């Protein structure tokens, strides 16, 4: 697959391209991160996320900058950077697309989705399309098994996927169409996402719903059947508060349409017997 691809994983990693984007601002932000912890070195993982947000990968210059700020050697920082799967030595595309192929998602269709995307994008695992838009990677369990098969874009969830909906998703990303996670925000770039992971919020926490259908499956059933936890010492505050402040029976019955921006994964998944309602 994609044997002659420019960023194929058998091509040597450029040690340094000599055009590092790390500036005094980056260094100042690294110091800010280190100051958040009782011991500065604890900020190393966030600092490496910051390096990726600036450089698009972990560069030698980024490693040296971390080392300088923390008083470590480059080798000590490299040892850490190479341990963690999210740190990339090769340039990552504008969008990182992850396909869960751990057992449950694989069985539910993740393997077929991954195969489809590899051939559709003409890349192998952990490789980037020629246009630099998409890096495809098979990922391990991402804690969304009740929405299997799961795909992520820049670590935002895309639920109940099919080969068709996954190819549509990557096509939309490549064409620059606005894409929203059904349980998250409008998709930003991978670098912007890395900046949030570094610890610099982007103010988009209020986008998206509280949860998807599966997250609310048990609660919805409990509401329908009037099942509650027993009353406690504080009185029936839970049930009473819920009854008062829930806006309507419809709201209690599940996520509202306004809570579900973006693509309805169900729409491309009409044959799925689980979507009976």
């Amino acid at each position, binding site marked *: 697959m994609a044997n002659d691809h420019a960023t194929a994983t058998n091509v040597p990693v450029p040690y340094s391209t000599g055009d590092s984007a790390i500036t005094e601002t980056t260094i100042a932000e690294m110091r800010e991160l280190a100051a958040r912890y009782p011991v500065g070195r604890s900020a190393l993982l966030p600092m490496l996320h910051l390096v990726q947000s600036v450089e698009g990968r972990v560069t030698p210059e980024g490693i040296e900058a971390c080392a300088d700020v923390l008083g470590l050697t480059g080798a000590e920082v490299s040892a850490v950077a190479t341990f963690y799967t*999210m740190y990339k030595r090769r340039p990552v595309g504008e969008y990182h697309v992850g396909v869960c192929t751990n057992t449950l998602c694989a069985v539910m269709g993740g393997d077929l989705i991954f195969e489809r995307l590899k051939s559709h994008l003409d890349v192998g695992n952990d490789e980037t399309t020629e246009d630099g838009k998409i890096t495809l990677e098979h990922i391990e369990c991402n804690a969304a098994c009740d929405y299997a098969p799961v795909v992520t874009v820049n670590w935002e969830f895309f639920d109940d996927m099919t080969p068709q909906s996954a190819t549509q998703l990557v096509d939309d990303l490549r064409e620059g169409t606005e894409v929203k996670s059904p349980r998250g*925000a409008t998709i930003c770039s991978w670098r912007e996402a890395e900046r949030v992971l570094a610890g610099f919020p982007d103010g988009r*926490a209020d986008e998206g719903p509280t949860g998807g259908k599966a997250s609310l499956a048990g609660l919805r059933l409990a509401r329908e*059947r009037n099942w509650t*936890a027993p009353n406690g010492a504080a009185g029936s505050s*839970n049930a009473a508060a819920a009854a008062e402040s829930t806006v309507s029976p419809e709201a209690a019955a599940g996520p509202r349409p306004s809570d579900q921006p973006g693509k309805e994964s169900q729409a491309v*998944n009409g044959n799925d*017997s689980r979507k009976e309602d």
Partner: protein
Amino acid sequence: MLTPVLSDNWDQINAWQLSSYQRTGGYDALRTALAMQPADVVTAVKDSGLRGRGGAGFPTGMKWSFIPQDNPKPKYLVVNADESEPGTCKDIPLMMASPHTLVEGVIISSYAIRASVAFIYVRGEVLHVIRRLQQAVQEAKDAGFIGTNILGTGYDLDVVVHAGAGAYICGEETALLDSLEGRRGQPRLRPPFPAVAGLYGCPTVINNVESIASVPAIIKNGADWFSSMGTEKSKGMTLYSLSGHVTRPGQYEAPMGITLRQLIDLAGGVREGHELKFWTPGGSSTPLLTAEHLDVPLDYEGVGSVGSMLGTKALQIFDETTCVVRAVLRWTEFYKHESCGKCTPCREGTWWLVQILERLEHGKGTEADLATLLDLCENITGRSFCALADGATAPISSSIQHFKDEYLAHFEHGGCPFDPMASTVFATAGASA
């Protein structure tokens, strides 16, 4: 049947915001706790019978009481939000929908053990959850619930949201500590236990998200209220996560001790036209169970009595279209990838397990390979610093125990006899192997 407590506000408008959380009584428990002596908070959690929801089931209050209060070093609370055990998907929706439930629990728990800094170590691969946690902590700071002289009590606390970088091993508590110190996430030898020498060598409590999130409800409603739910030794309500071949997968919050038969019934049954083949009670590291275990109470003792573990209550349901050898091979590849490399039996053993299982799945194995596999498993289990390797062997030995014939069928068939399309959610209705 279901007892929503942790999930009770998940259908509220903007449940993740402070104002919404407070409308449903949020942070009332914090006021109650701060009016108590820290030791009394520990006692309340002890009396409730709450046991760790991250898998091991260790009594939470007892863990807190191990913190040596005469030790002059700072104390730390670390929340393990690295949810990565295959099949486990309860903490992520909790933090997405109601991060303040966790944050309030963090403040109360930190007060109980007299920690001045708490960390929420959340896996890096969940961007929007991290956004919501960051915002919740900031809102709590702005409201005076985090910071100096909290609510005028003189208690000071800082809370840091820390994103990981993709390593299953960091869910292991001592590896998590090394990672939080800015190192490779590799487990530490115990003793000393973290309660004595944890983060930066200081007394540290590490608890799962769901454990800490359960604390506000216990303080608010009382230890007796909590222990009125559940079974004799497994108290309270908990989040059961159903995934796979069920009609309505999702989160089901119920008292400890509910059975899989009841849960599958609530979830609308196994997907139409199919039947249960095997399941995990608490993630892939817990030995597989089958339809004969449908009525086992899902509490620590019940699942233990049939040779498995309750684990994270991650109930992955597989029907008869699923090849057990393929499933186990994939999990084993995962453990191989995630082995941190520190201990030889795990680093080398998982490598060999994958090679043999690959051969078996492709129909090129022999019955002797099964014996070799079991022998390898025996030599790997219990011989490493942490439980990752033990988890790696659990699906292998349990699947051979329950499905030896299916392994043999691979030899006879000269490959996998299953159609991978048949097990997918987009298989046409009625499709079969």
